[in-house]
């Protein structure tokens, strides 16, 4: 991981120096070795705090909505999965393309600090990456673990290593193992359950929701000027889940507003403080769209019509759901 970071740092320095861009959005070192914060580096401050390692999971394309409105050009370090959101935001005219210079950076899959803790590793002070091994120095002695054991859910189901939007690519030349996985596996498991089991599962999960809006505010697609839940004149304005129904309502409406636009970047599940597998909701809609209306990956391009703003005369009838078999 060090090699690629070195290459990136040089490229960023060069681009800042020769004036193609006047500021960079990337990640800044935090207190510990895993809590990096997205930050904007202007030309003058040095890039000592810039970092790129296994804990830079956050998706920077959302910041570009406001940043691209300011004058001057910004250099954006985008991982492959972030570029899908970048394309989707370009398609929705939310990002001013010529104010952004996209540097496509290679990504070997990001790490999940909660999974490391779940392995019983506590008091983490330092994390070193060597190939597939992680050397973790903690207050209670040094620990090691395999990189693939602690990958983020969205990296286990990575959509592929190619960038779909970039002005320039930075690759370290190392071959990155393509992780084979069926990203709809959990959805299929849920579909196989009886409807009462599914209801119990989702009641269990959604009852944990504390309506902190982290999933909404981190989602690049879910970035309305004023969200329908905040706008007091809207019909569903609400601030707390005062009832079971409101928990369902918030997540169903959110899933529907991003239906056909969600690129399955997994950020919502990553940031949920309560660990609710929110990606399973969006992934279910993606699976349905692929099944009923043909393979569609949001953000693959910047001009195709989204599935919910398109139709064919031979679309399947809604009654297919009621006759889909299985018990009531």
């Amino acid at each position, binding site marked *: 991981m060090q090699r690629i970071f070195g290459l990136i740092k040089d490229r960023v320095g060069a681009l800042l120096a020769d004036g193609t861009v006047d500021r960079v959005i990337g990640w800044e070192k935090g207190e510990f070795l895993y809590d990096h914060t997205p930050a904007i580096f202007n030309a003058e401050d040095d890039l000592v705090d810039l970092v790129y390692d296994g804990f830079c999971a956050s998706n920077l394309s959302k910041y570009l909505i406001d940043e691209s409105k300011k004058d001057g050009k910004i250099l954006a370090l985008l991982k492959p999965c972030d570029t899908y959101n970048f394309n989707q935001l370009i398609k929705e005219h939310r990002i001013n393309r010529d104010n952004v210079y996209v540097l496509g950076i290679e990504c070997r899959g990001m790490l999940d600090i909660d999974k490391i803790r779940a392995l019983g590793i506590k008091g983490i002070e330092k994390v070193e990456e060597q190939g597939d091994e992680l050397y973790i120095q903690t207050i209670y002695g040094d620990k090691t673990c395999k990189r693939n054991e602690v990958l983020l859910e969205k990296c286990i189901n990575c959509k592929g290593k190619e960038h779909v939007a970039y002005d320039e690519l930075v690759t370290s030349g190392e071959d990155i193992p393509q992780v084979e996985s069926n990203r709809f596996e959990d959805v299929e498991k*849920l*579909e196989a359950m009886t*409807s*009462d*089991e*599914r*209801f*119990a*599962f*989702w*009641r269990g999960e959604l009852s944990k929701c504390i309506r902190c809006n982290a999933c909404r505010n981190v989602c690049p697609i879910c970035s309305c000027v004023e969200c329908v839940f905040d706008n007091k004149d809207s*019909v*569903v304005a609400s601030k707390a889940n*005062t*009832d*079971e*129904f*409101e928990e*369902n*309502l918030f997540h*169903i*409406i959110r*899933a*529907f507003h991003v*239906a056909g636009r969600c690129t399955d970047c997994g950020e919502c599940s990553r940031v949920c403080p309560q660990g609710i597998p929110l990606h399973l*909701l969006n992934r*279910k*809609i993606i699976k*349905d*769209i692929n099944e*009923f*209306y043909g393979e569609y990956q949001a953000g693959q391009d910047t001009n195709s019509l989204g*599935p*919910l*703003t398109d*139709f*064919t*005369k031979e*679309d*399947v*009838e*809604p*009654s*297919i*759901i*009621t006759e*889909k078999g299985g018990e*009531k």
Partner: protein
Amino acid sequence: MSIEKTEDSNFEPLIVAFCCNWCSYAGADLAGTSRLSYPANVKIIRVPCSCRVNPMFILRAFQRGADGVIICGCHPGDCHYSTGNYYARRRMTLLFSMLDYLGIERGRTRVEWVSAAEGVKFSTVMNEFSKTIHELGENKKLRDLRCKEFLD
């Protein structure tokens, strides 16, 4: 006959029907003019086109105590706005699939294409749907309890 699932068989289901102004609302009127009866617990809301029905309306109906929601529109191809019902068809398919995914009984929501000339079909659909909902029983899963047992 299957044994009545709900204990109180005098349970009166509440059904909200969204009917598109040009075809299914006219079909409902035709069912009226031809005196074809269907249960009184079906209440019709007129919308310009089936594509006007927002998932929020359906969830609001369930929240407020409806037991079944049916969306009627023109037959695909006959829509007065030419493409309205195509969008509605896709959106409703995904919504029904999502509700089923969350464990809500499949029969609670339904889409039916009824043209202005199909009064008979309208009344049979409403009778059938009301029977299905009656068998499914009261909507307990998608219900806002504050709206129900509220004070005296």
